[in-house]
């Protein structure tokens, strides 16, 4: 059998598939971040916390109310989106006129509060969430077992990414959102209810994070720090793709998942830093990221 650097071809396919799975997942997560950053100009440090809340809401739903996975997939993003809307209305709203830094600091503070709260309530080890019955088991692909659930994650992520991209790039609403980023006051003077739009957008971003959280719950342990661990990677994805570029974060998310997967095979110790190496190179060569528009 064909071997490459000591890895059999079959194993390599397996690894690429795993990379793709993670990539799809990064794409979903970075999507919400990109939407919020691109459209509201807020570096949403609470994104990780919202992702974690998505997972926890699903867990609570199952354990306290008996809501199953499929309903959680809809209800948890709604719930977290609502929390996002509340946060926007009460806190973030006051910061739009100010430097990004303040939005960053505020959402960072919020993330600390939310994470600390969950940690206080549920400890650090976290809770488990089982894979839904229908998705138990695995497909035998010949070169590896693909857990059905992972297959579902890829499909669900890609669909959500595509839908979001369509809305923002191809609809009037998307044009409002982009214009609102630049000059909200003027857009409002044209008759668009910008404050409501901004609130809903933040809600949408939070809901996307929560959706990612529900998808992740059966794969990882549901715990308070699951978000902060992944946040920085997702952040890098958004920057490499080009801030605010929806397509950029989707493509980059998947590509980075693959690259990271390969690094894990050939130089596993370096898999945490490879993303930063790529980020530095990309930004030095293409200042606005792969898909970003230069000013």
């Amino acid at each position, binding site marked *: 059998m064909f071997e490459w650097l000591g890895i059999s071809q079959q194993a390599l396919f397996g690894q690429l598939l795993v990379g793709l799975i993670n990539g799809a997942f990064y794409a979903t997560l970075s999507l919400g971040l990109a939407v919020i950053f691109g459209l509201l100009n807020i570096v949403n440090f609470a994104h990780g916390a919202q992702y974690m809340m998505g997972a926890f809401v699903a867990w609570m739903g199952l354990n306290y109310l008996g809501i199953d996975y499929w309903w959680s997939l809809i209800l948890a993003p709604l719930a977290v989106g609502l929390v996002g809307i509340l946060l926007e209305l009460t806190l973030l709203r006051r910061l739009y006129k100010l430097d*990004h830094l303040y939005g960053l*600091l*505020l959402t960072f503070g919020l993330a600390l509060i939310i994470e*600390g709260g969950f*940690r*206080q309530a549920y400890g650090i080890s976290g809770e488990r969430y089982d894979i839904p019955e229908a998705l138990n088991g695995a497909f035998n692909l010949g070169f590896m077992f693909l857990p059905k659930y992972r297959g579902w994650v890829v499909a669900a992520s890609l669909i959500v990414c595509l839908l979001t991209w369509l809305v923002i790039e191809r609809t009037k609403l998307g044009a409002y959102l982009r214009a609102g980023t630049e000059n909200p006051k003027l857009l409002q003077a044209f008759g668009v209810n910008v404050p409501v739009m901004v609130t809903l957008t933040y809600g949408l971003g939070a809901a996307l994070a929560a959706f990612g959280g529900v998808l992740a719950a059966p794969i990882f342990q549901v715990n308070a720090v699951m978000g902060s661990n992944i946040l*920085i990677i997702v952040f*890098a994805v958004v920057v490499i793709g080009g801030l605010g570029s929806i397509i950029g974060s989707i493509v980059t998310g998947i590509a980075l998942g693959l690259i990271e997967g390969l690094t894990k095979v050939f130089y596993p110790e370096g898999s945490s830093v490879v993303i930063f190496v790529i980020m*530095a190179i990309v930004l030095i060569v293409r200042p606005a990221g792969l898909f970003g528009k230069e000013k």
Partner: protein
Amino acid sequence: MTFDRTRLGFIALVAAGLVAPYLIYPVFLMKGLCFALFACAFNLLLGYTGLLSFGHAAFFGSAAYLSGHVIKELGVPPEVGILIGTLLGLGLGLIFGSLAIRRQGIYFAMITLALAQMVFFLCLQIKETGGEDGLQGIPRGRLFGAIDLSDTLTMYYFVLAVFLIGFFFIYRVVHSPFGQVLKAIRENEPRAISLGYDTDRFKLIAFVLSAGLSGLAGATKALVFQLASLTDVHWQMSGEVVLMALVGGVGTIYGPLAGAFIIVTMQNYLSGFGSWVTIIMGCVFVACVLLFRKGVVGELSGLLTRR
């Protein structure tokens, strides 16, 4: 008038520094001073050049490691060790700066973060740094071969001196012809270029100075705690210094000093509260953003001038 007030402020600062160890636990003061210097160095960049670096831990931490290493393993005297750490900060600053300086805003922050992560990775992989155990038991040694730094009070006055030198240096830079150009660049870069200023060079110099001072702070810290660890190079340290500057007041000369002490105090005295610390910290930041946006010092001086 303003001149007098500035001078009065400096005298008060020095006086407070001299008597403080008799009233407050000196080790705590030393920690505060090291971080204050770090925050002031960072503020030189953010507050006066408008560049938000998210990789300053790289300078702070790698200087701590290197000076710790040369003091511990090669037995160089402390002042030389600190100097070497500072030089490393300057050198790294030059590398980071040359790569990042042409980028703006969030992209600048991200390149510095990415480069700092690489430094972190190196520190994790290199054997000399001791991995997650860090470099422990760095001897304080004798300053200039004569003064024994193992005495806490002596060490304190040494740290105070280092801090004051750094602090006054930053003040000088901010209020120099060079500082004026920095302000102009922060305000309107294309205009500064059209007046004939090579803005990239000015920004680069500011960056290198800030990195060098961060290295000085890190090296001093290593000597105080006889310890250099991954915490010092971790991105959270870069975040912490941003917070210190913000809490105290970006672009004010005393702000980062106050901010550093506030954060260090919080870390010290809230340590028994577990997860509540995280929650309390979070609340402080939220409150800062909503209520004291200019930072503690910024708001206070705002109050004073309004009177």
